Structures are given as structure tokens and as C-alpha cells.
């Protein structure tokens, strides 16, 4: 573990990686990804933990999409950051999308409120909204599933 830690270029020390590995061993997690400024690391549980340096992904838009492994043509749109989920703008009566809405890549599907600022969550693909997973006013964390999109025509890379 200490050898693997020595090869990792990150802000964390070897002792930090060992501590994280210990915490993970006590949990049920099989994989943990941690990123920081200019680095991203994945820890996989095999026999003990293997630390793997990953190439830094391009930041959003790709980061708010997860391809569901078990549903072929469905995309989950996830929260790109923490915030209060709003299904409509505070000055608009109707929700931006509902289950069944046909949407296009780039359409704003909902808003996240952070303090006074309202940020857009945009659709990564053309498709149809199948499910809305969050409820208005709910505080959502980074990566929380917000929408499921089906009949996907194009995916943002």
C-alpha cells in the first residue's frame, strides 16, 4: 500500500492513503474515486486496496452523466454540485420538464439553488424524460440522480 501511495501524485500523504484504505476496509465500498486540483485517483478493493492514478477527466459537461449499466438506452442526469433542487424557476409557474417531456441536448431540465445563485442542469442528450428522482426543495449532493432520460439520441462527450 505504501508503495502504491508513493507513486500517486496528489495533495494527500502516504499516511492519508493508508488511513482512507483502512476506513474503506471497514465499509462495504468496492471502489472510491477521489479528485483534487489537477489529480484524480481511484481506489479498488481487490486483495487489499489498489490505488490507481487516473487521467484527469474534462470537467462538466461530461461529469453530470452516468450511463446506467443495466438499462441500455437510459441516461441518468446527476447533480453537478450540491444545491437545493428546483423543478421550476421561482418566477415561473410550470416545471421545466416532467416525465414524458421531450428534451434536446443543452435544454435546461432543472435548477440548483446555491445561496442566491440559481445554476442550470442541462440535458446531455436528446431524449424523453422518464423519471424525476429528486423533489422540489430537496437538498441534493454532488452526483445525486436527478433525472432519467430514455430514447436517447445523442450523448454529450
Amino acid at each position, binding site marked *: 500500500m505504501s508503495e502504491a501511495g508513493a507513486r500517486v501524485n496528489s495533495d494527500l500523504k502516504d499516511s492519508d492513503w493508508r488511513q482512507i484504505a483502512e476506513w474503506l476496509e471497514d465499509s462495504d465500498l468496492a471502489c472510491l474515486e477521489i479528485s483534487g486540483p489537477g489529480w484524480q485517483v481511484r481506489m479498488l478493493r481487490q486483495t487489499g486496496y489498489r490505488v490507481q492514478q487516473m487521467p484527469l477527466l474534462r470537467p462538466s459537461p461530461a461529469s453530470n452523466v452516468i450511463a446506467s449499466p443495466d438499462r441500455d438506452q437510459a441516461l441518468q442526469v446527476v447533480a453537478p454540485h450540491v444545491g437545493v433542487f428546483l423543478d421550476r*424557476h*421561482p*418566477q*415561473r409557474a410550470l416545471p421545466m420538464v416532467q416525465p414524458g417531456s421531450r428534451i434536446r441536448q443543452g435544454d*435546461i431540465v432543472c435548477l440548483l439553488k446555491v445561496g*442566491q*445563485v440559481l*445554476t*442550470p442542469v442541462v440535458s446531455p442528450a436528446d431524449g424523453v424524460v422518464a423519471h424525476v428522482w429528486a423533489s422540489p426543495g430537496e437538498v441534493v449532493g454532488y452526483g445525486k440522480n436527478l433525472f432519467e432520460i430514455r430514447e436517447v439520441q445523442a450523448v454529450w462527450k
Partner: protein
Amino acid sequence: MIEILCAGALSTVQDAGRTSYRRFGVGTAGAMDQLALAIGNLLVGNSPGAAGIEVPVLPFRVRFLQAVDFAVSGADCLLELDAKPLLPCWKYRAHAGQILSLGRDGEGFSTGARSYLMVSGGIDVPPVLGSRSTQLRGQFGGYQGRALLDGDMLKTGSQDGTDPGPRDAKAEAGGAGFGVLAPDIALDANVFFAADPAASVAVTAVRVLPAAEYTNFNASSLDDFWKSGWKITAQSDRYGYRLAGPPLGLTVALETRSHGVVPGVIQVPPSGQPIIQMRDAQPSGGYPKIGSVIEADLWRLAQALAGSRLRFVQVNYPQAVAASKANQVYLEKVRDQIALYRSLNV
């Protein structure tokens, strides 16, 4: 460059106003809703002194002749960019040739009375006496000292050191834009307005400080002043809001020499019907003053439509100062949070 396709009526270029020349008899002019102006400037990344277009009558349409960031703050209405519906208080990127519409024929504002179109770099007209505001009475400042007309071409540009260059790269990346909560949602002044059983959507409550001649009015008039729902008559505009309600009378006839007055001052002429001085009012007047709408609530006045009603809520000086502070805190939060969002949104 922006081309005015449909100017509506009385649309003017306004910024924060001329504040250093009142003692020479030059009124402030400037945006009626200073909060909306400030928020719009923050959204598009302008310095606080940048000018925008105040739109009091719909419909209003412009064509962008070059790419700019823009936002529409203040009153809400049907907003469309090339027929695509937009959100209020939201920063967008327009490409050259796109047409922005505020409202449609026959439809007015859904809430409020004045919208503000703010663009990155601000409206570039020559400053007069330190401000780009239009002084309609004196016919100077703004765009040729007058309200806008169909066909006017307005330059937008770098003002007060605002450089649109570096922001362009970020604007392209953040294509969907972002917004802020409007003041009527974000400001929590409800402690002053909640107690009124007669309060409704059509009644705007504003906080008022008693003015110098307050005690010269008779007791029943003072009672009427605080209790009435004063109607904003159709003869209300940027010069002043003429109110209709029970006539207010003095205990003893009073003659005062003309003296300086500021926006928000409520004068009572011999008719007994109060007039609230607004941004284009004369800087001096001689009528007795019964009260003054606090500076922090002038934007609420600006967003009260002609035909709707006003109610005055009495406050004291420390409360008025606290209200101004609350507005300031809100703007600082908006500024800091926008800066944080921009820095994270690579």
C-alpha cells in the same frame, strides 16, 4: 451594437444616476429600480456604474448586432430570444443577429412595472455630469437626451474598466448561463408587511419615515395617511407618483420656502392628494412633506404599477438604516456568489 426594433414608450438609458449635482439643481435621474440595475450588472459582469435600458412599457424588441452577454432584471414578462422562452434575472449569451423580445402586443408585465435590459460592457453613450442616465426634463444624457425610438442604434462597450475579453471564454463554456434570486424573493422584509390584514398582491407596502412637516398635519389626516390604500393614479411617472385617497389637511396653513427634496419624499400640495417624488423630480420643492419613503424601499415603489395601491408602514431612522443594510448585504452575497460560480465553472 444593439438595434432598437420596437422601443415601446419611455424606454430610456439609465445607470445609477447623477449624485454630485443636486446642489446645482440637477436632479439625479437614474434607474427607478436601483436593485434591478445592480443585479443585472452583476449578472453580466459589469462594474456597478454601467448603464442599461429601463423598459416601462411593453412590447420592447431589440436585435443584437454582435455577440454579448445580457440579462433582463426587474419586472417579469414574456421573454424570448428568437422565439425561445427565457428566464428572468438570468445571464444569457446572444449571438449576432438574434432578436430579444420583452412582452407581446396586448400583454403587459406579469409582475412589477419596469424591466431592465443589461448587456456586458454597458450601454455606451457619452457621460454627462458623471452619469449616462437620461435627464428627460433637461433633455440631456442617455441616448441624445430622449426616450428611445424604433431604429435607434446603441453602442455597447467597455466601460469603467470592464473588459469583456476574458469573460468571453468563460461565457462560451457556461452556455446555459445562470441566474440569481430576485429581490422580492430574496429580501426578507416580511416582518414589516405581514401584519396588515388588507395586504394583497395589488397592494405594495413601503416603509416611510415621518418628514419635517409631519406634525403639522391634523390627527385624522395622519391616521388616514398610514391606514389608507393609496391609489397610484395614471398621472404617475418618473417625475412623481400622484396618489389618490382621503385629502390630507394641515392643522394650520403653512408656507415654506422651496428647499431640497430627494426621491421618496412625499409632498402634500393644497389639494391634499400626496405626490411621491421619483427619480426625475425637481430637486427642490415648497409643499409640506408628510413623510419620506425609505431609500431601501424605493425599488418597491418603482415596481408598483399605475392603478395599484400603496400602503405606508411607519419606521424609525435605525430601522430605515437597517433596511438599507439588508439590501447591501443581499447585493454583496449576490456579487460574491456569482464570482464563486464563475471561478468554478470552467
